[in-house]
Each structure stands twice: as structure tokens, then as C-alpha cells.
């Protein structure tokens, strides 16, 4: 194998991808846009909204959920009770800093696949079959392209994993504590030379170096991190240059012994939300958190004290910017005739409308851009009034 052949073909490959490299496109550095802050949490595995915010006032509820309804929840309203494991969030509810959007879903209807559902949720597609938009990027990335005065660190993905919701042509930041490198400056230069010459590695390598140099004393965790810690990381980013942050929160696929798993999940979510509130201090007052999941779960318990994949789900809303203390949305009812295919909570609203209204109010993204670019096919409808 001749080197020349390899080099020329490689050079060709590099030539092809130059246009796509954000490092080579001019970037406008500007002041971060204002004090508003948005956090989007991707709840992976399909959170059972009917168990988190329980419609105890619905006459059909108790019979559908004999095991799950057994341990009493905490009254939010006469109709809805909160799962007891989320008790730590009650002060937020009472302060108007917590709310929920019930019976909502993405437009995905043709199946109940986690993976199609999550990609659809993060891509923001309007397709009923869940197929991604042609750009195959994330809606939060497309939203950034419609905002004035953004910088590469205006939006940040926090955590180890890739986040489709922030992927795309608009440059974004990625943050997680890592180890520092003890290489000499000379060896570091050599390593940089080989990595930046490779179009696939150039950008992630450069961002990794950025991470390694900007730890500010933060120690790299050995193994995974707790969600409370993740919430602290998010708050730290948002107290710096970032105004939009997103992270992934898995483990909601409760097919069996849901009582135990749901309690662990809600403890983690409570920890994350409270850590953000603490870390943000006064800035919590201008922050909105939207936690979304790919779909809901069956209205009926299954044979193993859990629930199977459903359709209508729920979004969790929090933050000082929220006009909370309210369960948003239109309740479809749980009677058999009101369920989708006699099994799932009927979606009565497009979950995408909630982040869309937030983007409009907090970051000035206009309705036309929201309904075409960010969320294709979305009908914004009436303002649900989630913001103060």
C-alpha cells in the first residue's frame, strides 16, 4: 500500500468536510444574551406521568393502578396528587416554582419504540412515524441559530454522553469534569497536530483540550455521577457564560416493580432540581427547567407491578421564571373510551409547544421560526402561560 495513495485520499476526505467544520467558520463572540436561562432535561426510558402526578380525581384511576395507587401521594390540587418520593419538591410547588404539563406527547404515533421516540423528541420532528428532519440535528441547536448574540458557549451539554438535542451546525459547548494531562508542552503540540489534522477528531479533540484546561479545580469523578451533582454542574455553567443547558436523565423504563424504581428516579430528579436552585441562587428567578420524555406509559398496570410503553406523557416544569403551582394541559379522562387504543393516556397537547413558548418569551425566537425551523409542523396554539 503506497503512502501517496493514502495521503491523497485522506486529503480528499479532509477537503470534503472542511465546510462542515465549525472550527473553520467564523464565530461571533458577543455578550451572552441576557439573564434568562433555560434547562432542558431529556428523561430517557418513558417516564410514567400518571404515577408522578396522579389523577386521583379521575374515577377510573384507582382501578387502573391497584398496586401503584396503594401508597398515597401528596395533594397538589383536588384532582392531582404528587408521587410521595417527590416530596422534596413540594416547597417549589407552593412557591409557584413547579408545574406540570399533563397528557402531552410528541407527534410520534406509529410505534412505541424508545429509540425512535427519543430521537424524535430531541430532533423535534413533526412526523407521526418519528422520522427525523432531513438535517438530523437537535431542535435546541436549530433554535440557537435563530437567536441573536449567541457565542459557542451560550448552550452547553452537561454529562459524558452525546446529546442529539444540542447537536447540529451551530457550535455549542460540552462540559464534564475530566483529568488534566501531564504531557509536556512539546508533546502536547505533537498530539494536537495529529488530532487536528483529522477532520473527524479535530473538533472533539479541541473541545476535550478546552475541558482539560478549564477545570477550575473540579475533580474528575471515578465512574458515574449522581444527578444532584449533575444539577450543580449545570448551575455552574449557567452562572458563567452559558444560558441554555441540557442533560440526559435515564432509567424511567419501569416495566416491573415500578414503586421502587420510580422512588429512586424521583429522588434523583428532586436532587437535580434542588441542586440547580441552590447553585443558581438569585438567577433561579429567571430560570426555566423543562424535563421531557419520549412518551408515556400504559394507563393500566401490567402483570408485573409496572407499566408498558404508552403514548400520552407528561413534562415537568420548574424554575423561578415559571408561573407554576399548576398542572397545565387538557385532561382527557381515563375511562376506557377516552384512552388511545383502549390502553394509553390520550395526548391532548403537543409537548413541543411548552419549550417553544419558552424560547419565544425568553430568547425572542419568533413564531414563524418556531413552527417551521425549530419544531416543524407545530401549531403553537394559545399561549399556555407558563412564564411569569
Amino acid at each position, binding site marked *: *500500500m503506497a503512502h501517496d495513495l493514502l495521503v491523497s485520499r485522506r486529503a480528499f476526505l479532509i477537503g470534503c468536510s472542511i465546510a462542515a467544520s465549525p472550527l473553520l467558520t467564523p464565530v461571533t463572540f458577543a455578550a451572552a444574551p441576557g439573564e434568562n436561562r433555560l434547562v432542558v432535561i431529556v428523561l430517557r426510558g418513558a417516564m410514567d406521568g400518571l404515577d408522578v402526578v396522579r389523577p386521583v380525581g379521575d374515577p377510573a384511576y384507582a382501578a387502573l393502578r391497584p398496586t401503584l395507587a396503594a401508597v398515597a401521594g401528596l395533594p397538589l390540587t383536588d384532582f392531582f396528587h404528587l408521587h410521595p418520593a417527590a416530596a422534596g419538591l413540594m416547597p417549589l410547588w407552593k412557591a409557584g416554582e413547579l408545574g406540570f404539563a399533563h397528557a402531552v406527547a410528541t407527534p410520534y404515533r406509529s*410505534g412505541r419504540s424508545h429509540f425512535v421516540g427519543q430521537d424524535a423528541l430531541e430532533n423535534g420532528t413533526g412526523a407521526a412515524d418519528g422520522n427525523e428532519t432531513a438535517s438530523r440535528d437537535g431542535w435546541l441547536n436549530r433554535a440557537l441559530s435563530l437567536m441573536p448574540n449567541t457565542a459557542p458557549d451560550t448552550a452547553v451539554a452537561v454529562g*459524558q454522553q452525546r446529546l442529539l438535542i444540542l447537536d447540529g451546525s451551530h457550535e455549542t459547548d460540552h*462540559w464534564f469534569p475530566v483529568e488534566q494531562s501531564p504531557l509536556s508542552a512539546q508533546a502536547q503540540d505533537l498530539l494536537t497536530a495529529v*488530532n487536528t489534522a483529522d477532520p473527524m477528531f479535530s473538533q472533539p479533540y479541541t473541545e476535550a483540550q*478546552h475541558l482539560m484546561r478549564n477545570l477550575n479545580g473540579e475533580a474528575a469523578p471515578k465512574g458515574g455521577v449522581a444527578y444532584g451533582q449533575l444539577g450543580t454542574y449545570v448551575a455552574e455553567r449557567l452562572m458563567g457564560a452559558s444560558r441554555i443547558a441540557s442533560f440526559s436523565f435515564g432509567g424511567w423504563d419501569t416495566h416491573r416493580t415500578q414503586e421502587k424504581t420510580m422512588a429512586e428516579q424521583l429522588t434523583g430528579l428532586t436532587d437535580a432540581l434542588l441542586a440547580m436552585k441552590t447553585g443558581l441562587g438569585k438567577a433561579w428567578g429567571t430560570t426555566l427547567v423543562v424535563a421531557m420524555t419520549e412518551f408515556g406509559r400504559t394507563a393500566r398496570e401490567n*402483570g408485573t407491578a409496572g407499566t408498558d410503553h404508552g403514548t400520552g406523557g407528561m413534562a415537568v416544569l420548574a424554575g423561578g421564571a415559571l408561573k407554576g403551582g399548576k398542572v397545565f394541559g387538557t385532561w382527557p379522562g381515563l375511562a376506557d373510551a377516552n384512552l388511545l387504543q383502549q390502553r394509553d393516556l390520550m395526548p391532548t397537547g403537543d409537548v413541543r409547544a411548552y419549550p417553544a413558548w419558552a424560547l419565544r418569551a425568553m430568547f425572542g425566537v419568533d413564531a414563524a421560526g418556531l413552527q417551521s425551523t425549530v419544531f416543524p409542523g407545530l401549531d403553537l396554539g394559545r399561549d399556555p402561560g407558563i412564564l411569569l
Partner: protein
Amino acid sequence: MESLSLLEEIRFGYGPLAGTTPSPGGLEPDRVLAQLTATDTAAAAWDRPLLADRYTLIAAYIDANKARKASKDTAKPPKDENDPRIKIKQMEHLDVASFVARPAVATLGFVERLVNFWANRITVAGNVDHYVQSFRDEAIRPNIAGRYADMLKATLWHPAMQNYLSQTGSIGPDSPIGQLKNKGLNENLAREFLELHSMGHGYTQTDVTEFAKLLAGMSQDEKGRKVDKKRAEPGDKHILGATYTEGIEQIDAFVEVVAHRQETADAVAFFMARHFIADAPPADLVTALSAAYLANDTELVPVYRTMLEHPLASDVIRTKIRSPQEYLVASLRLLGMDGQEKGLLGFPQANMMLNVRLTSMGQPTYKPLRPDGWPEVAAGWMTPPMMAARIDWAVDISRAMGDQASPVDLVDFAMGDLATPLLRRAVGGAEQRWEGLAVLIASPDFSRR
């Protein structure tokens, strides 16, 4: 046994093994396929206990716990190496270690890659720690050179899968126990079998529910497979346009039908091409693999041969990125290590703690985040924190091992003519040997396959 060429080792194995001499030349399908029938004594040193032994140990563990509770003995148990509690911990530790150590020492890299590929395609994980290893060794490994239909049967029934996708406890609502206790189905395994393990599309929610009825009451233990009549849903099940009654043979019959579907052939072809050849494999390759699969009664070897004969299989441009496990193992093989070394400079004294490394790179052993397995495309492994973890590993292992050989010689051994001139210059230009090695292991060239 003729050793693989460098290109074969890199694309279809775990990279060249220190102390061996790769065959000259490019890709010869027969040479790669010969590995499927050869014996690997080095890898066999990492054979792990089979299910029967695991059952025995777990039974002893449960007995020991019961005995301790009954005796109201609250004192800490003595550190007896025959205590089942200690033996189980050791077993788990070695199971996890073998994920890296076995391919690190293996002479049949293609075999280990196939086991890993299929075990990822048909994933079990999480709360089934004691059985994941057996799933890989007893449901996947014996079937990698057989029929996919048989792999589907073995994986569907294996206790690790039954547990992972919540099949245990799924009861026909009209079965005697379902009626007595008002119990019902759990459709998790039925859905993921159709979505992830076989067809991927082309079925309805009704097919999923009906298939869940067919599976209700199934289990497999020391005595073999059974369908418990007290839990099985009585009556006909209408799935994908055909009718099934109940029992083991009916489940087998349905799996055979699904295995022979065009959708399943296309899925097998796509996933194999994506794993070995390209993140976005060309349509002609996928079509050829799918056709080979259907023409040979779901036999996998003809599919492998078709893949190996495709021009992209021998292309010198490597577009795939090694997974963290493949990356870690390739670096150990380069240095002649198995990851069990103790007292290395800069590492914890007793243990290299490679699972912490894999976790930081995004791949904690046997714990994929989703039932569709680990990412199979570069984007899943190239977030900045994961890249930083690769660099961190490269630097640490090079500091510990890098004074023993010329890093430029290691470039030749690891990649030969496949290395870019830039890499050769950069590694040769380092001021210290270990830093040259760090540049090699942290280079894009070394992560590509």
C-alpha cells in the same frame, strides 16, 4: 494457524498482538474465516463459569445468607475464601475483567469481535450481573458461526434475557394463575425481540401483544426450557398473519418465521455492515449481506464471507472508530498486557481499575444505557469528555510502559503502512519515549479501524 494481516487484525480483530508477526498483505477472507473453526488456548484461560456452576454458587450464597439470618449472627463473617459471598464477588470481578482480558490475550481476534458484536446487538445488562457473562458465553458464543434463528432462540430463552426484559412474571391474563391472582402480561421482551433483535419494523402493537401472550409462562433453568401451563395464555394467538397455539414448539416456530423475514435479514445486514465497515454502510453491501442471509437459511458464515469479499472490507481508509473496549484492548495488545498487571507506575497498586477507564470513555462493562446496546457509530464515542478520557488513558499507560520500546517501532507494529506520515513524524518527534507512545495511542490513527 496463519496469523492475520495487519489490516485484518485492525478491522476484524482487536489489533496486532505483541510478540506475534502479522501475515503480510491485505485481506484474505479464507484466512479470517478460518478463525471460526480454530482453537484459542490463550483466550480459553479466561473461560468463565457456565450457568450450571453459577446456579450452584448462587444457591449456596442464598443458603449462607439464610443461615446467618437464622442464627441471628450480626458479627461480620470471617474472610473465608470458600464463603459463597466472597466467591460470588470474585466471580463478578473476573467476569468484568474478562471483558478486556480475554480479547487482550486472544489469538482469534475475529471470534472475539463477533461475540462482542452479537452480544451488543442482542443486549442484556444491568440487574442481571451474575448471568450476563453466561449469556455471552452460552447464548451468543456457540452461535456466531451458526444460524441466526438459533441465536435468536438461545438469547430469547436465556435467563439473563428473561430477567433483563422483564419476561419473568409475565402471566397470561386468562391463565389459571392470571385469573386467580388477577395478573397479566408484561410485553417488554415481546416488543424488544421484534424491534431490536429481529425485524425492527413491519409489525403492529397487536402483534406485540399477541406475541407477549405466546411467551407468557416461558422459562429456562437447569432442567431446560418449559412453558408453565398455569401461566400460559390459553387460546390462539394471531401474529404477523399466522396463528399459534401455545408451548415451546410454537414459540420456536414463530422465531423461525421471524428469523426468515426480509425485515430481519435487512436488519442483520445493516447492523453487521455498520459495525465492521462504515457508520453509514452503502446500500449495495447491505443488500448483498441480506441476500446471503436469506439464501442460506439464516446461516451467518456466508454473510461474513460476503462482507469480507466486499471492496470496502479491504479499503485502506479506516472510517470506523474503535469502541472504548476495542480501544483499550488494542493498546494492551500493542504492549503485551492483559490488564491484570499490578503495581504499575501511576496506577492503583492492586488493580489497574480498567472498568473506571471504560466508564469514563463511555462504556462501563456490561452496563449499556439502553436495550439497543452501546453506540455503533463514532458520534456516540466522541464527546469531549470521552475524548479526554482516551487521552488520559494514553498518557497514563504510556508513562507506565513507555520506556520499554521505541515508539516509532510501535507505530510500525501497530499500523505498518496504514500509519499516516504525520503520525510517524509526530511520534518520532517526541522528546521522551513515553510521550511518543502517548501521541501514538491518543492519535486518531490508533482509534480508527
